[in-house]
């Protein structure tokens, strides 16, 4: 568990710092992707790395995502630790075969002889006014692929800690970066040294007794806001930030739901076949007799991500979350 002192920064800068520290600590860490070198990435998350570590350590690749991930697999086979950037969520799809058929399976296929310590950074989600193909929530695809870890930070500190852990992991990690939090600063405490966060642990962001909001990534701040707003309605909401979708922290989540007796899963991804189904189902399996109401879901609609001018209608917002909380059969209580 490394301890590193950091300066105040946005989530984007914390991510940069995590890569920088990882590269400084371990010469086998290589960053690669489209525009990650000279430009520093379209979100500037790899800014300065090529300058500091040279183009061989932070490499502008040809424009071909399957090739990027596929060559990263070969580099990992030879003992490097590639950190791959997919420029946007939807542009990771060309690499899907490499991801599912090789990245996720290589360790298992070779009985552990050929692990792939690979981090795949994917800026994901909407809310930034992006045109089509720039705002997908693709986490359901990754969750349904055994062999991958799936991690997503919601705070600046976690961005650092979880990315360090992802890079240090001996298994492939799909590291989902909520685009609309890239410039968020709120939860970062510059005075406190930031530690590497173990992967697989959810965290209670806000304690409450009325009901649990289970969420992750871009929806965490929305849920925090909803929890504040809920006070006016007399609800004291707990907010659980999953941080890791795979492995899933049943313990933390179920402990919360057993305490509160009610839960709403909140995410931006489409509802049908999205992460919320899995989460609701497993919470229900484990906490059935503690539940006063079915676990509800607040999610994006089941449609292709909307154009910028309509995205606000799609994204789960405070009202929609409070609506769902209101449907948690409070009558049963009284």
């Amino acid at each position, binding site marked *: 568990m490394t301890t590193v002192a950091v300066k105040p920064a946005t989530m984007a800068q914390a991510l940069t710092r995590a890569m920088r520290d990882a590269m400084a600590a371990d010469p086998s860490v290589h960053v690669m992707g*489209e525009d990650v070198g000279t430009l520093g990435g379209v979100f500037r998350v790899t800014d300065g790395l090529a300058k500091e570590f040279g183009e061989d350590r932070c490499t502008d690749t*040809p*424009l071909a995502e399957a090739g990027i991930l596929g060559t990263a697999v070969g580099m990992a086979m030879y003992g490097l630790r590639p950190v791959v950037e997919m420029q946007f969520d939807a542009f990771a799809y*060309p690499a899907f075969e490499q991801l599912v058929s090789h990245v996720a399976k290589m360790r298992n296929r070779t009985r552990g002889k050929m692990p792939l310590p690979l981090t795949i950074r994917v800026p994901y989600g909407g809310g930034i006014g992006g*045109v089509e193909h720039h705002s997908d929530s693709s986490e359901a695809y990754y969750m349904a692929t055994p062999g991958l870890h799936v991690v997503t930070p919601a705070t600046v500190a976690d961005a650092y800690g979880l990315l360090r852990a992802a890079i240090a992991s001996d298994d492939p990690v799909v590291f989902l970066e909520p685009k609309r939090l890239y410039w968020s600063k709120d939860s970062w405490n510059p005075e406190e040294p930031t530690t590497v966060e173990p992967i697989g642990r959810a965290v209670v962001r806000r304690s409450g007794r009325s009901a649990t909001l289970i969420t992750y990534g871009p929806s965490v701040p929305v849920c925090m806001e909803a929890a504040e707003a809920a006070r006016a309605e007399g609800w004291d909401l707990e907010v659980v930030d999953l941080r890791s979708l795979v492995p899933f922290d049943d313990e933390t989540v179920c402990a919360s739901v057993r305490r509160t007796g009610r839960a709403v899963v909140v995410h931006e991804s489409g509802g049908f076949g999205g992460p919320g189904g899995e989460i609701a189902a497993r919470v229900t399996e484990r906490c059935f007799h503690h539940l006063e109401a079915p676990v509800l879901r607040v999610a994006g*609609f*089941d*449609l292709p991500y909307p*154009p910028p001018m309509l995205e606000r209608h799609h994204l789960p917002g405070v009202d*929609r979350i409070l609506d769902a909380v209101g449907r948690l059969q409070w009558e049963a209580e009284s």
Partner: protein
Amino acid sequence: MTVMEQRGAYRPTPPPAWQPRTDPAPLLPDAEPYRVLGTEAAAGADPELLRRLYAELVKGRRYNAQATALTKQGRLAVYPSSTGQEACEVAAALVLEERDWLFPSYRDTLAVVARGVDPVEALTLLRGDWHTGYDPHEHRVAPLSTPLATQLPHAVGLAHAARLKGDDVVALAMVGDGGTSEGDFHEAPNFAAVWQAPVVFLVQNNGFAISVPLAKQTAAPSLAHKAVGYGMPGRLVDGNDAAAVHEVLADAVRRARAGGGPTLVEAITYRVEAHTNADDATRYRGDAEVETWKQHDPIALLERELTARGLLDETGIESARQDAETMAAALRAQMNQDPALDPMDLFAHVYAEPTPQLIEQREQLRAELAAEAEPEGAQ
């Protein structure tokens, strides 16, 4: 069966299957990009065509400038300008017959407009009120394709389908130098050549894929050389020479129409502006390079040819400029109006018939909007 039984007379015969499937020699591009303007070839060019190209180039440049200005005013979410590449954009559109199809890449709004699509509808994607703003069937223009190179197999399939139906239709597909690295770039021309589909691939090599220069993209002698590996001719053309681009594309279209199969054209050009309004090009290239290219400007090249040949004078130049200003003013006016938005549209086109799940969700949103509309519900 056993090896020994097979022994016998010494046989230096060639392996049975070997025969080159195509003669490679005619497939190879010329060593130098083909040029018309300022060369003897210019004499053969049709004056009417040159004048038309000129008018469109001037309008195209103005359109690019106007669209970029609209991003600054918040009227467009983003705009990838094709300033400096107008010769390719315009020639691609003008070379096609009405019944043909154009498959643009995300930077090719100009080609879409030059093909006849309403200038505002062409910007819907980039304004953000919807995705594709025009009816692709109306002008036979596929949606502007953001996932790079993915539109190329569509063009092949469409051209193939038209041929199967006996229709005399050619598809022209556009892609950037960066896009040539994608797997879809490979699969599309391969299918096209095997099927001898009437399709023309136009690669605009503008030197960069966002910040990545061509040298980091490929080690090929030229992108046109990739054609050989598919068994189709590769053609190299000066992409800032509108007459040359038009001629090379016209040849390829003619060949495709006549059943001669696909052609791959590399047009060498330059992206004069940043990748988009959101990009900072100074991070990856110097002014000097941009300046050099500005000396090889497509409009200036054509203007010189036209004036040198007495086909254009100050009045003509001024009138082209005026037309462009008129277009720009109209565009500005239209884009300064807020587009009509109906959130219910979100559910209207996911399927021919909305699923029960979507109907539920639609009604949820309708209720939310109704609640929002009530005074006390307003936030």
